[in-house]
């Protein structure tokens, strides 16, 4: 508990997490509002249901990737990681506390992005299909809480492995925003690989673009994909912690 509290003080005693959080929420919600105000939705088109409101959540996710990676790489940058390991020599404890203290705000941001995007769309351009009726609808909106939390864990793991802000952020953003999408372009095997990529899995859990025909025959269901996404994040985090234990601080 004391280690968690120490991490909480660390997180809340600098301003950058607040700016990141604000950006992570304002960017997707703001752009969703813009889309809602311009969209001309015909009664038949609205088969998309509520996930039309979540199309831009990946922007918030990208900011959370940066925020979470920074929370560990900035400690390496400023040398405070040494103070951290000095006061808590059991490194796994220190790093798991940091993971918890970063993942929880990320989940709150996820809630704000999910429900915020949905509410703002609803307020500007309301139509009946946007109501949260089915379990699927709830998964698309409330599911952001889990997706954002797991995203933070994944980014922390990468941060622990790479240690440098520029490197970790570049790897995470290029991967999340470009690589996953481009792999699908590889002929023949591209699709099969893509079906096992972590952020693809996160999107399948949320149910984004489920109406696209190519996405019908998938190896896992939504909850299976969530478990898979979580397993990948946990594996990267474990690798990060192991690396921190082995290497000199």
């Amino acid at each position, binding site marked *: 508990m004391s280690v968690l509290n*120490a991490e909480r003080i660390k997180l809340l*005693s600098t301003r950058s997490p607040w700016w990141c959080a604000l950006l992570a929420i304002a960017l997707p919600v703001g752009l969703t509002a813009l889309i809602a105000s311009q969209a001309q939705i015909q009664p038949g088109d609205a088969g998309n249901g509520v996930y039309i409101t979540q199309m831009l959540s990946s922007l918030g996710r990208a900011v959370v990737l940066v925020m979470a990676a920074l929370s560990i790489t900035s400690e390496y940058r400023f040398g405070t990681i040494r103070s951290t390991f000095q006061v808590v020599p059991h490194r796994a404890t220190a790093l798991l506390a940091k993971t918890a203290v970063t993942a929880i705000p990320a989940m709150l941001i996820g809630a704000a992005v999910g429900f915020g995007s949905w509410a703002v769309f609803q307020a500007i351009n309301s139509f009946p299909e946007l109501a949260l009726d089915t379990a699927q609808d709830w998964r698309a909106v409330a599911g952001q809480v889990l997706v954002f939390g797991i995203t933070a864990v994944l980014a922390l793991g990468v941060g622990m492995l790479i240690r440098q802000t520029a490197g970790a952020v570049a790897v995470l953003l290029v991967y999340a925003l470009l690589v996953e999408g481009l792999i699908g372009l590889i002929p023949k095997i591209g699709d099969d690989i893509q079906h096992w990529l972590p952020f693809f899995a996160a999107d399948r859990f949320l149910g984004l673009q489920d109406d696209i025909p190519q996405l019908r025959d998938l190896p896992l269901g939504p909850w299976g994909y969530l478990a898979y996404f979580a397993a990948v994040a946990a594996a990267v985090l474990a690798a990060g912690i192991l690396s921190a234990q082995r290497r000199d601080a």
Partner: protein
Amino acid sequence: MIEAVGLTKSYGKTLAVDNLSFSVPTGRVTGFLGPNGAGKSTTMRMILGLDTPTGGSALIDGKRYRDLHQPLRTVGALLDAKWVHPNRSARAHLQWLARSNKLPAKRVDEVLEIVGLTAVAGKRAGGFSLGMSQRLGIAAALLGDPQVLLFDEPVNGLDPEGILWIRKFMHRLAEEGRTVFVSSHLLSEMALTAQELVVIGRGKLISQSSTEDFVAQATENTVLVRGPQLGHLRTALGQAGASVRDEGAGLVVSGMDCADIGELAARTQTVLHELSPQRGSLEEAFMQLTGDSVEYHTEIADAPTPATLVPAGK
């Protein structure tokens, strides 16, 4: 009590610390002396469990650092005053450290008071001068009221006032019965601060002794004698049991003081142009001892001409 036994650290083929064994006694200020790059910081990081030794071990009161429960209560350390998040206030920095080891929140204000930073406690640590950063680092080291304290080059870059403050502070800590282990590359500073000395060069132990012994051993007092004809005096000095060596046109005599040499010169009717005591400086002594073990030599004697002065690269 800190004890290093066969401590070794290698980075690839480079041996930074080579089979180093020493002990730091309780209740005294022990200086950890060596030229830049001798392995002092690496050794301190190994004592604190930040770097893993390639071989050997470092024990604090018989325990490895990583096995300490709430280590701030046993060991306080200042390795680098810059290891602070620049946008965090001094108080917040101490608060998270204190919380991690379940130290009472009021202890933060106490240590701020001790180092005299109370007035700037709410200010960003990034805006601190080096002296203030050092004080903040010392405050952090004192948080858990530990019996063992480690400081790495605490006076580096400080003004005379800051140096004096730190020197007095170390003495106070040792008088309170604590173990203080402080590194420096300046022997003159250590001669004033430390009672015991652990001297290393190139990662190897050169000596461990009291500072007094080290200084006495290292600085030999001699007398320089110059004159037009020193032949008779030389013989007489030799007979009187002094040891003599030539230096330029003069003689360097050891084992006899100025008064005796002067009288001997009168008896042998030798004209003297100079008779002056030579006190070996601490720096010279230190250079002599660690001379072979400085990692990056500067060859002043055969300095390259400007045309060839190109970066050598490491």
